[in-house]
């Protein structure tokens, strides 16, 4: 019987160790960025512009940059994903749906850096020539590619949610003479809204957390972008760009502010989604 007890302890230990990584991640960032939390400095860093010449090291432009790129990506990915998951659910079920779903699943496995690389050499020149302004490295380019990048994950979430609406609801609507589109709009989408919101929130987390696309395609100028064709720097890209600078400088410490901000955002998104999921359970 002793082996049983030891095994149980080992499994528990593994689970606790893994969970502690989640906490350690935050603790390490807070400790190394410690001077940031004295005398309201953290707040100043979040709200000031980035002007190293005047000793101002604020990440406000990066917050705006991240929001701009991620919102554009979501504006591209959401309608696209809703369309594709509708195709899978009602418009062309069967063989075509299966094929499309396999292709979408494969897309989730395409390396981010590959999207970025193709973006640099295909989309950037296209944007530069089409709008005849700037270098082509801008919010628009990064947002479009990021939208294509997060769409497959979103589609898998959406079609999962649509497929989980009880078949009896669907059959009842069909028996009343509803067309496939009416079933989708009046039965499936309202019935799956929790799953759709979950997919939306988690994909937003992915868009905000992505590094390579913004780093390679958005131009990385540390300024608040004034339009879609302006260059912008995301929080994630800021971490990658500043990591090589002097370790004790305030400039360097700002990457921990970015890290903490990204951590807080994605953790909040995860907690919100779990709340939503738990509330949804008793209904069924």
């Amino acid at each position, binding site marked *: 019987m002793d082996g049983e007890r030891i095994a149980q302890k080992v499994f528990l*230990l593994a689970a606790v*160790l893994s969970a502690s990584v989640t906490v350690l991640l935050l603790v390490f*960032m807070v400790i190394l960025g410690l001077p940031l939390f004295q005398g309201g400095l953290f707040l100043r860093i979040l709200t000031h512009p980035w002007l190293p010449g005047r000793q101002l090291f604020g990440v406000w432009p990066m917050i705006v940059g991240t929001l701009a790129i991620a919102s554009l990506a979501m504006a591209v990915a959401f309608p696209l994903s809703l369309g594709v998951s509708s195709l899978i659910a009602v418009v062309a079920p069967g063989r075509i749906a299966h094929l499309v779903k396999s292709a979408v699943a494969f897309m989730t496995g395409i390396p981010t850096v590959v999207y970025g690389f*193709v973006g640099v050499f295909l989309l950037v020149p296209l944007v530069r020539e089409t709008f005849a302004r700037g270098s082509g490295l801008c919010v628009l380019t990064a947002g479009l590619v990021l939208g294509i990048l997060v769409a497959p994950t979103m589609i898998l979430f959406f079609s999962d949610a649509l497929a989980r609406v009880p078949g009896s609801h669907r059959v009842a609507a069909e028996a009343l003479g509803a067309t496939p589109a009416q079933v989708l709009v009046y039965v499936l989408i309202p019935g799956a809204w929790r799953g759709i919101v979950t997919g939306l929130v988690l994909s937003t987390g992915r868009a905000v957390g992505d590094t390579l696309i913004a780093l390679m395609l958005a131009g990385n100028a540390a300024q608040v972008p004034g339009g879609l064709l302006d260059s912008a720097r995301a929080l994630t890209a800021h971490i990658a760009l500043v990591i090589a600078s002097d370790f004790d400088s305030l400039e360097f410490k700002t990457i921990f502010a970015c890290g903490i901000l990204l951590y807080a955002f994605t953790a909040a998104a995860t907690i919100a989604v779990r709340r939503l999921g738990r509330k949804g359970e008793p209904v069924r």
Partner: protein
Amino acid sequence: MRQPPLDRFVRLVSWGSTLLLLASVATVIGFLLIKGYSSLSLKLVFGDTPPMEALLLRRPVFGGLFPAMVGTFSLVVLAITLAVPLGLAAGIYMAEYGRGRIQRALGLFFDILAGVPSIVVGLFGFSVAVFLHRHFGGRIYPCLLISALSLAFLVLPYLIRTTQNALEALPEAVRLTAPALGATRLQNICFVLLPRALPGILSGVILAIGRCAEDTAVIMLTGVVATAGLPRSLFSSYEALPFYIYYISSQYRDPEELATGYAAALILLAICAMLFAAAALIQQRLGARLHQRL
């Protein structure tokens, strides 16, 4: 037959978005194939060194992708070796032992970890390296081991969840047979449940391998460099395929070097596609087997 306007609209939107999405992916892959295919060759991988000599590590490779491929390979092997035992054990706990509030709390931590951006995990790895550097004699710098450890943390929540789900998906009849015959809980897990859940776990591991191979954000903070040759030890810097692609996209000096970037992107894409196909195949087999039994 004439359709109502709503139906026409839905058909139009769904077909339109599907074709648009498939076309963009086809463009990405097609573009790489057209630009990269012609420069795929043994010389691209091994430079001017004879392939056999390079593979046996007798002679170094200059100007080829070989060091980056070896770097990525060692990184993946190390990260998976670190992550799989821990992830498997934690997943077994979650599925077979954990109950109530403790299990829910642990689940919350794993979900948060799964959502943390990879650059933040990389920043954590970097911080750990700084910490070790300060407290252990200054010999530790960002290196292969630190990168592998960070990547292990990145895929850990994923491995835990696939293990947990694979175990929880087993039918109740399978779960109860061995205990009814007098098997202990641990015997049931080791000899009945784990073997039955293995295909599910394995496809999760393969997808985790893909994530380790493609991730760039983590390694660029934890020790990857553009030119290092083959990794000499766990504590040395190293080259990696995804970082090479990123580096070339901004730092290429001539069209020839750019061509190697295209080819490297094509190779990485092919590696990830093969891993994906392997995972899908295992899952399909699993599905077929389950249907047979029902």
